[in-house]
């Protein structure tokens, strides 16, 4: 009985460990300037205020960076689902020579340091004329999100019984119709999770986004490059604003967490 209680205490401590820093940054983001610089600080916020957060949104370039981030993330989402889902479907439904090699290729891509991709691509993008464009950043982010998209959609399609599809064939659907009318509706929630995941990978990525842009900064790239010469309230509000989608994201896709990461162990 005591052991159970100890477990519960430890579990709650871990919750505090995860949530307290988020609570603190949220507190700072929603307080006025004097509170941000107050000394010593109390745990509880002194005064609710929109001063810091509105100061953040008032800085020139922030809105544009947010718009850029959203656009890049949206493109990444579309590209990785369009490229990844067919491959996932092939892995789930067919046994074909080279399937294992393909799986290996997918897993190997996760072992690449981002620097080794971003630096030569930056050089090449200048020559191709897509340096400092949102498309260029989105393409690199797609490369990061695609392996996940393939693995998740493949386990997603595996979980949809093949018999349903075959039944549709016998009832006169062709392959495409059977896919669109039977498989797709069942796969939609999982595909949405894949899409959200791709979105967040892109929203969070900073190294490549910084290297590949100059004026068309995404929000993380904008924050990173202005860190050294920006006041603390700006940084705190920016940090908080970066985190918000993460909270929503984990909540929405919590059912798929294990397919997203756990899959690697098989």
């Amino acid at each position: 009985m005591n052991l159970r209680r100890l477990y519960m205490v430890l579990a709650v401590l871990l919750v505090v460990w995860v949530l307290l820093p988020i609570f603190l940054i949220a507190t700072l983001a929603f307080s006025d300037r004097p509170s941000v610089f107050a000394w010593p600080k109390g745990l509880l916020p002194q005064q609710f205020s929109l001063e810091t957060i509105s100061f953040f949104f008032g800085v020139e370039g922030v809105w544009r960076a947010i718009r850029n981030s959203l656009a890049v993330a949206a493109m990444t989402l579309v590209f990785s689902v369009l490229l990844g889902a067919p491959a996932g479907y092939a892995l789930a439904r067919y046994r074909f020579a080279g399937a294992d090699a393909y799986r290996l290729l997918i897993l190997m891509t996760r072992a690449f340091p981002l620097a080794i991709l971003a630096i030569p691509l930056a050089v090449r993008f200048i020559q191709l004329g897509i340096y400092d464009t949102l498309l260029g950043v989105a393409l690199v982010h797609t490369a990061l999100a695609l392996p996940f998209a393939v693995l998740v959609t493949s386990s997603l399609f595996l979980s949809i019984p093949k018999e349903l599809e075959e039944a549709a064939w016998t009832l006169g659907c062709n392959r495409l119709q059977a896919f669109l009318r039977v498989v797709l509706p069942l796969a939609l929630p999982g595909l949405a999770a894949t899409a959200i995941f791709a979105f967040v990978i892109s929203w969070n990525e900073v190294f490549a986004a910084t290297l590949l842009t100059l004026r068309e900064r995404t929000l993380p790239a904008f924050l990173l490059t202005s860190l050294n010469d920006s006041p603390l309230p700006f940084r705190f509000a920016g940090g908080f604003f970066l985190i918000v989608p993460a909270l929503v994201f984990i909540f929405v896709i919590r059912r798929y967490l294990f397919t997203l990461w756990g899959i690697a162990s098989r």
Partner: protein
Amino acid sequence: MRTERYLPYALIAPSVLFLLFFFAWPLLEALLLSVRGGGGGWTLENFQRMAADLYFKDALKYTLLLALVVVPLQVVLALGMAMLLGGLSRGRDLFLYVWTIPLGISDLAAGIVWLAIFTERGYLNSLLQALGLIEQPQLWLSYETPWMIFLAVVAAEVWRATAIVFVILVAGLQLIPKEYSEAAEVFGATPWQRFWRVTLPLLKPSLQVALILRTILALEVFAVVVALGGRNLPVLAGEAYYWYNAYQNPGVAAAYAVVVLGISVLATLVYLRLMRPRQEEAA
């Protein structure tokens, strides 16, 4: 029937082409970039410039030390959390949800969050003051105290990225049939013995994946460090960034990237060798 045979290849082809273009090709380009001189000939000039740079030794040292400190901490903590989750009688879903929140938090945001704690008028100093340990705010994140920056980076990294290891291990635990542990219990094994003799050996594949993934990511640590210490705590990926952006020298930047890749490959090989499954397991 012919189309049926080629259909899977048609379905994977776009992603294969995309990945070749964005992984295989940049890899070759990076290698070439690092060994090409300004005139186009082969040269080790970039590596020599990198090695002679003031920041190189520190960057190498801190990157390796960070990985050596952060990764074991994360694995031990995540393993503890995974076992703890199994021991909880209530609220498992809620704990699982909260513990995995950091999965969605970017390295930059995590760095900024911990900046709020470690900065001069931050929460750490406020706590120390409340405990009566200091009277005036202490400056922790300055170039004079790289070890404190190091500590702050470790705190931020453990906070942010333990969740990835945790999820991989929980998924691995779910694959282990309960019967093994139950059988051991029947034969009188204590919980401690069951953990060391049954669970841990069976969890080896997941541990291997988690270690490889986390080590590779730890070797690329960048934004957390920039947010907490700027260049006062140089790391390899950061140097690649500065050489590309500030010094406009893709050659040396590529050399740094090649070093990161080299260490990553080496670490992966070491893990694969050290954690090789025994013959009977492989069969």
